[in-house]
């Protein structure tokens, strides 16, 4: 009986240890992958998505370059220790999606953005009220902040009325963190999320006009792949953007832009030095969709990018083919440009060194 207290202490320590180890394991295991498709605004002009799996050779290669750069820029030995210890890897999200949504304000167009971070381990901690409060205070340092409840989701708005351009909001929906310069876009995502939770089919908020293409392109996504989807949409936002740029530079880059339904990019970062990618230019409507003018535009864009790459040390194979997207079931309604490019490592090193010099 006299050893009873010792046993209690021992058991208590063992339980605490197990709980602590459990907590660490819970924290280290990434949150499950989540599709953010149903959170994406239907009128998005562009969607950019990247899976950040550090086990992928390509992502590891790029992360290695960034780590070297961070080490060379770090001021204190503590910072260097943190970078070398790879603790930052725990904080990385499993996926990043960025969307650009045009908002027509009379004659002007404002380009809003939303960033979706999924599967981030830090997000688990931020579900705790006390941790979230600390983060809100940290982010709002020197700025005003406002916490709102929108249909059960907690939204934090940071910034001031005087400086709208630097204001932003963020919220957590499931295992996804959303950040945007426009609170109403997060609110709309909350609604999409709630409908999805209710399993209502019409709650899915995919890009309506290019729904199939978006699904085909985005859901093919694998680790180490970057995907970009740009749609012209009913309001011809892409056409308007390109036309404005052409007027500004007095040069026609893409005279056939009005024929374009959407543009997709699928880029596989194979290792730290090479990428394999496909650009898809999808025209409106079947056989007549791909005109000679559109072919010439795609040729010119491909050659310009190829020559810009060549001047910056990138080399590779470039092919252009017109054909059919299997999922679309139409003939010759798209042009695909395929690139196998090497020399990425030196190219990125050059950019990173310039970044350092600029500062």
């Amino acid at each position: 009986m006299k050893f009873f207290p010792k046993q209690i202490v021992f058991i208590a320590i063992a339980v605490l240890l197990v709980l602590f180890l459990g907590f660490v394991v819970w924290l280290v295991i990434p949150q499950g992958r989540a599709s953010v498709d149903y959170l994406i605004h239907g009128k998005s002009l562009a969607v950019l998505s990247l899976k950040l799996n550090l086990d992928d050779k390509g992502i590891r290669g790029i992360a290695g370059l960034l780590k070297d750069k961070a080490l060379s820029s770090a001021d204190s030995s503590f910072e260097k220790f943190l970078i070398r210890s790879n603790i930052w890897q725990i904080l990385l999200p499993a996926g990043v999606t960025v969307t650009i949504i045009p908002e027509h304000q009379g004659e002007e167009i404002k380009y809003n953005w939303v960033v979706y971070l999924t599967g981030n381990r830090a997000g688990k901690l931020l579900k705790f009220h006390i941790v979230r409060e600390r983060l809100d205070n940290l982010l709002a340092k020197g700025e005003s902040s406002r916490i709102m409840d929108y249909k059960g989701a907690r939204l934090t708005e940071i910034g001031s009325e005087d400086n709208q351009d630097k204001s932003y909001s963020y919220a957590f929906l499931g295992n996804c963190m959303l950040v945007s310069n426009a609170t109403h876009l997060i609110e709309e995502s909350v609604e999409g999320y709630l409908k999805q939770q209710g399993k209502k089919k019409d709650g899915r908020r995919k890009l309506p006009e290019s729904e199939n293409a978006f699904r085909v392109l985005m859901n093919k996504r694998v680790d180490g792949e970057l995907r970009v989807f740009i749609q012209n949409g009913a309001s011809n936002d892409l056409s308007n953007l390109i036309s404005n740029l052409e007027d500004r530079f007095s040069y026609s880059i893409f005279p056939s832009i009005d024929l374009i339904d959407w543009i997709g990019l699928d880029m596989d970062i194979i290792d730290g030095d090479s990428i394999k990618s496909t650009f898809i230019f999808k025209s409106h409507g079947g056989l007549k969709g791909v005109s000679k003018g559109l072919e010439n535009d795609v040729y010119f864009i491909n050659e310009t990018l190829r020559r810009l790459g060549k001047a910056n040390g990138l080399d590779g194979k470039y092919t252009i083919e017109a054909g059919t997207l299997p999922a679309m079931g139409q003939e010759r309604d798209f042009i695909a440009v395929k690139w196998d490019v090497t020399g990425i490592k030196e190219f990125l090193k050059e950019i990173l060194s310039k970044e350092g010099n600029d500062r």
Partner: protein
Amino acid sequence: MKKAFVFAWLIFTWVWAIEPLIADENLTSLVSKDAVIVASIKPGKDDPGVSYLASIWKETLKEREGNSTKKQEAIEDIFKQPHLPNITVAIFGKDITKLYGAGGSIFDLPSYLILVESSDKEFLKSKLDVLLEKSENLKRETFKEGEFAYNEFAGLSNDPSIYVQLGDIIAVGPGRDKLEEALELSRDSKDSIARLSKYKEMMSKMVTHGDGTLYIDNRDLAFTKMLRELEKDWKITLLLAVDYIDSMGISFDIIDKDSAKANIVFKAKDPKGIEEIKNDARFLGEAIARKFVEENVGHSSNITVSGKYVILELELKGLENIWARIFKKG
């Protein structure tokens, strides 16, 4: 002052050569065959396109009267003549690689040759005397029956400082060498570029009745080296197949006030370079056309291959407004 001088000479030799103009054999027979760049303009008397451009250029010059330096006035007087002179500019040997360092100005090169053919040579000489600065310092000397007029103290080290009259043609340069060579060639032109078979062959691919030409010889890859330096600045590789190019020619014909056509001709060193050169030609054609699309100018382009030659033909329609804008700005 130096700037004004260089600017005036640039106008004199190059503003018209924005569009390369046709080689006149009278002039090119005075250029030695070691020339690597030969740019010529031949504004024909009855050419409606050239007459139109000359008239709007003269209008622009009139508007500027009173605001020019003496040297600019001398150049403007040359352009105000009823008939514009034929002009050929030549750069020799490895000097082409120094063009980049010279910021594209031939007046920083150690040697070059400018040939001007005019019906009124006394008028032209009087203007050249002004251009060579301080006419009181101008010395005259006869060498092998040619009268050389020179000013050792003219502006920049490589500014035009000497000229010699060779019949209806006046040769101008920064030193005697190329002028003496021109004098020799005026007696026997067998070593001139005009007699060089590759030059003649290239000229045969140019636009017929063109107003001007530009010939570039990629001998010893000198043009390749110059282009690579330029491409570093531009941050884009313009010609991926430049290593395969033996020589290049550009010709331009201003048909009338509204339309023009041009040929860009590439000669391949090796037939295996033809496909790459064709791709470069297509890219150039597209790049040029896109500038005109934005200006609402009608255009068409066509690429043909003939033996080792790749020829890009361009036709433009609706240029009247562009000419007016260029010359008003100029």
